[in-house]
């Protein structure tokens, strides 16, 4: 078992090195690795399956925890107030293609909710990284784009419990009860974080890295476990723990957890790939491609509108439009939940193909945004000059 596991992790390390070399997200590479190994792949894994499946579960929890650690409760509440409208537009535009596709394929409402979630969420990890790498944080549209990411992540905290309830096939009443429990928990956590954050921090804080790591990890797994018992989705529990911790403590915890998260998140993506049979990919390629095109269009429209509302010109709008395209971890988390519950087996390969396409296409498009904007502006100027040479010349001279 050790040999197999070692080979897998070493392989992932080499893939991660490739992704660093070409500065793309490693997520698509991990997915491909998973596809290559697992059921129907070239090299079926046997003995390490158990570890990988437990590791994948921990991976989801750590992904959500570190996401929660990125945000403070006041940031979340502030975002809800300022960008609720843009956020709802984002939700409406981007969930629609998934929901429609699932309904047209006759997969039923539960699969529609799952596929809507898969097409909706932008990968806040990839997008934030693209924006930092390209030096876009100073631009006018940056706060709007980041607020959209926060809004989406917060939406996930409400969406995941609903999805979990639907997947469990609970009755309407029980479903509503779950939703009520989930919203109440989120409300309480936000309140605790806003008002009594320092008490939680005192409980967890420690000058020793080791103590801090174990305390945060233990607390998170415990809360995630309890949340799962309450049918609220363990991932959301972890996200809320992340939000409740803030300030320097959150920063320290994030740095400590980063290596663990990288390891287990990689395991999670491989696990998802393992459980997707590559033979199932070709039949869904058409749907996935259509969804990807729709996903690029609707996200770009969202970004364009959000940047326009922030007062940006063409350049800023194109940047915002391209920055939001990448999909990644959450889409796979949602698909993973749906596939495990056995809703619609084709959801897995569709999500894999969708994320593979957009996680690669997103950052590439983003690199092309500014050159494209320059081209458009130059063309526009030339057209103006041609139609009215007199004014164009004077403006040129004024400069």
């Amino acid at each position: 078992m050790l040999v197999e596991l070692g080979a897998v992790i070493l392989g992932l390390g080499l893939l991660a090195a490739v992704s660093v070399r070409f500065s793309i997200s490693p997520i698509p590479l991990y997915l491909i690795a998973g596809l290559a190994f697992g059921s129907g792949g070239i090299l079926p894994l046997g003995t390490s399956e158990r570890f990988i499946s437990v590791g994948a579960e921990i991976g989801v929890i750590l992904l959500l925890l570190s996401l929660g650690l990125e945000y403070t409760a006041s940031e979340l509440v502030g975002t809800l107030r300022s960008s609720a409208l843009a956020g709802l537009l984002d939700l409406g535009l981007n969930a629609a293609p998934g929901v429609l596709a699932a309904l047209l394929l006759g997969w039923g409402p539960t699969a529609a909710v799952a596929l809507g979630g898969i097409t909706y969420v932008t990968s806040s990890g990839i997008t934030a990284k693209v924006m930092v790498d390209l030096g876009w944080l100073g631009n006018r549209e940056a706060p709007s784009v980041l607020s959209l990411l926060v809004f989406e992540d917060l939406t996930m905290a409400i969406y995941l419990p609903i999805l979990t309830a639907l997947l469990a096939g609970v009755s309407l009443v029980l479903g509503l009860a779950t939703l009520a429990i989930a919203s109440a928990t989120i409300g309480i956590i936000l309140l605790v974080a806003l008002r009594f954050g320092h008490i939680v921090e005192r409980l967890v804080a420690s000058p020793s890295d080791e103590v801090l790591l174990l305390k945060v990890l233990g607390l998170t797994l415990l809360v995630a476990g309890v949340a799962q018992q309450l049918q609220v989705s363990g991932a959301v529990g972890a996200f809320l723990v992340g939000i409740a911790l803030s300030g320097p403590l959150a920063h320290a915890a994030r740095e400590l957890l980063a290596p663990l998260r990288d390891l287990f998140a990689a395991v999670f993506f491989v696990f998802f790939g393992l459980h997707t049979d590559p033979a199932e990919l070709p039949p869904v390629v058409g749907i996935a491609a259509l969804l990807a095109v729709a996903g690029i269009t609707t996200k770009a429209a969202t970004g364009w509108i959000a940047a326009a509302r922030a007062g940006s010109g063409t350049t800023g709008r194109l940047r915002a439009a391209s920055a939001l395209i990448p999909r990644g971890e959450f889409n796979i988390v949602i698909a993973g939940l749906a596939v495990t519950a056995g809703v619609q087996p084709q959801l897995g390969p569709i999500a894999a193909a969708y994320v593979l396409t957009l996680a690669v296409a997103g950052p590439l498009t983003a690199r092309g945004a500014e050159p494209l904007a320059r081209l458009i502006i130059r063309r526009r100027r030339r057209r103006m000059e041609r139609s009215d040479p007199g004014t164009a010349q004077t403006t040129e001279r004024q400069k």
Partner: protein
Amino acid sequence: MDIERTALPGIGLRHVFTTERQRQIGVITHSTGRQDLVIYDEDDPDSAELIVLTPAEAGVLAELLGTARIVERLAELHRQVEGLMSVQVTITASCQYAGRSLAETRARSRTGASIVAVVRNRDVIVSPRPDFVFRPGDVVVVVGTEEGASAVAAILSDG
């Protein structure tokens, strides 16, 4: 001068202001401690030059821009903030702390006031470190409550 403060959720904070000559400058403070200096294009507010600074580099830049003004600003500060005042004490040759380190005065733990700067031969040493050694002729700038600041002044002038 208006400084526009914008939260960048998940990243940090951005401060932007417009100079007298209508140029916009911004600073992005990441929660990791990294700071970016942003200089906006004169004609197109959608393009900007972004310079990434490590905490050490940001400190150097701040020091280069700020040293000459710090004493001036402190004087202003104590006029603005009620209850907070700054006192300047000259270290004389007879002072018992001349030739001894800042840590030995235990000024902060004894009085609650802080020694924020020392002026030596027209140079300003901002935030002197605990191992900083006083010399006769140094002017020590103390900030604290009225009580605390005068207590430090008393310690430094006659021990």
